[in-house]
């Protein structure tokens, strides 16, 4: 089943397009990294996904339905500032979650917080940043949504808390099989967690697809300046010194050119390459299909 599908999706604020011409298909059960520079359209895409905003053009579907009304039961959203009532205790926060969400799983939420060592009697304002993040994620998971959307879940957390929040989130995924969409600036942190990438830049999706597939298709080519290696590929970004050219390319077939060194790349290199090249929109349609469509 398709967890997330956008067709011709666009959002305009005043006369400025925050997001334009977005086509996406993400299968169920993925952990999706939404990355891109500030102001790229990440938050707009998340707001559209959870029904906080309505599209100006096109459509967005979550598990086959637009994310409004009844369908909101299937979507949970954790905003970056983790909005919780500071004067509530953790227990009161859970009760609020139970009142507001028909499918809320209170026992599971209590078990989870107990495992995390977060006392139910504590007031929210007495918790650390990491604990507040854990409570917010616990509420979202207890809602029993099929898709959980997290805006910068690790921002403003220390390294230990970041690891603990991620551990907790991954354990919840193992328990529920839910699909996760999370935005982040720190690509290195997403490496072992995410299996799907959506890279937005300047209000457009530059790359989207299975991470292994994306990494597999990109190479760094190093060779003499003023020449171009033979083979089918698209140049993503390029840097040249007097003697040497360095190309980040998306391959369409094998490259055999003895003058050029072909190097594998890490996800971070690929993402940075695209971010650097965000002004040169000379790429063909930017969507890379999911692995199952490629074979």
């Amino acid at each position, binding site marked *: 089943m398709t967890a997330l599908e956008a067709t011709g999706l666009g959002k305009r604020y005043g006369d400025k397009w925050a997001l334009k011409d977005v086509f996406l298909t993400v299968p169920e059960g993925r952990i999706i990294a939404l990355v891109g520079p500030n102001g790229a359209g990440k938050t707009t895409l998340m707001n559209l996904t959870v029904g906080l905003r309505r599209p100006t053009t096109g459509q967005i579907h979550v598990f086959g339905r637009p994310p409004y009304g009844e369908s909101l039961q299937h979507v949970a959203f954790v905003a970056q500032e983790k909005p919780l009532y500071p004067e509530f205790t953790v227990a009161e926060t859970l009760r609020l979650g139970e009142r507001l969400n028909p499918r809320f799983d209170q026992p599971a939420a209590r078990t989870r917080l107990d495992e995390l060592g977060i006392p139910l009697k504590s007031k929210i304002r007495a918790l650390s940043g990491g604990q507040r993040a854990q409570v917010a994620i616990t509420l979202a998971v207890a809602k029993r949504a099929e898709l959980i959307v997290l805006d910068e879940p690790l921002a403003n957390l220390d390294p230990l808390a970041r690891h603990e929040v*991620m551990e907790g989130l*991954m354990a919840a995924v*193992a328990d529920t099989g839910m699909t996760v969409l999370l935005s982040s600036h720190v690509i290195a942190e997403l490496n072992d967690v995410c*299996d799907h990438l959506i890279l937005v830049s300047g209000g457009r999706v530059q790359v989207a697809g299975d991470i292994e597939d994306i990494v597999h298709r990109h190479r760094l080519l190093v060779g003499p300046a003023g020449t171009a290696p033979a083979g089918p590929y698209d140049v993503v970004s390029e840097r040249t010194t007097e003697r040497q050219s360095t190309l980040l390319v998306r391959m369409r077939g094998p490259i055999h050119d003895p003058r050029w060194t072909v190097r594998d790349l890490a996800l971070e290199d690929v993402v940075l390459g695209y971010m650097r090249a965000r002004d040169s929109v000379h790429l063909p349609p930017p969507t890379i299909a999911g692995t199952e469509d490629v074979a």
Partner: protein
Amino acid sequence: MIEFTLDRKSGTATYAQIVQQVEHALRAGLLTYGDQLPTAREVVARLAINPNTVLRAYRELEQRGLVEARPGLGTFVRRSLARPHNPRLEAGLLAWVSEARAAGLGPDDMRSLLESALTGHLRQADTA
């Protein structure tokens, strides 16, 4: 029960690291027939990795006939890779190590000699 660790700088894919660690544990005798592997939840709750990565590693181990998934129960070892204890071989190796040490070889020298022997390069050097 074994615990997995991750080398995030190794460049080896995470699922492949898990496969390697299970195989190593099977060879070393740390895991034997009937032992249970940690559940995906236990692994991800400690390493903060994608549960699918663990499941993929376990599927690969299953395809190699080393483990089997019993639905609702967990993943269990089907076959051990441990070699039977061989006192003569071990005594010979210990004798070789002390002889090498007496000849002034350090641990790295010995390792590279063993590596050469394993890859077949040592014989070429002898006949050359």
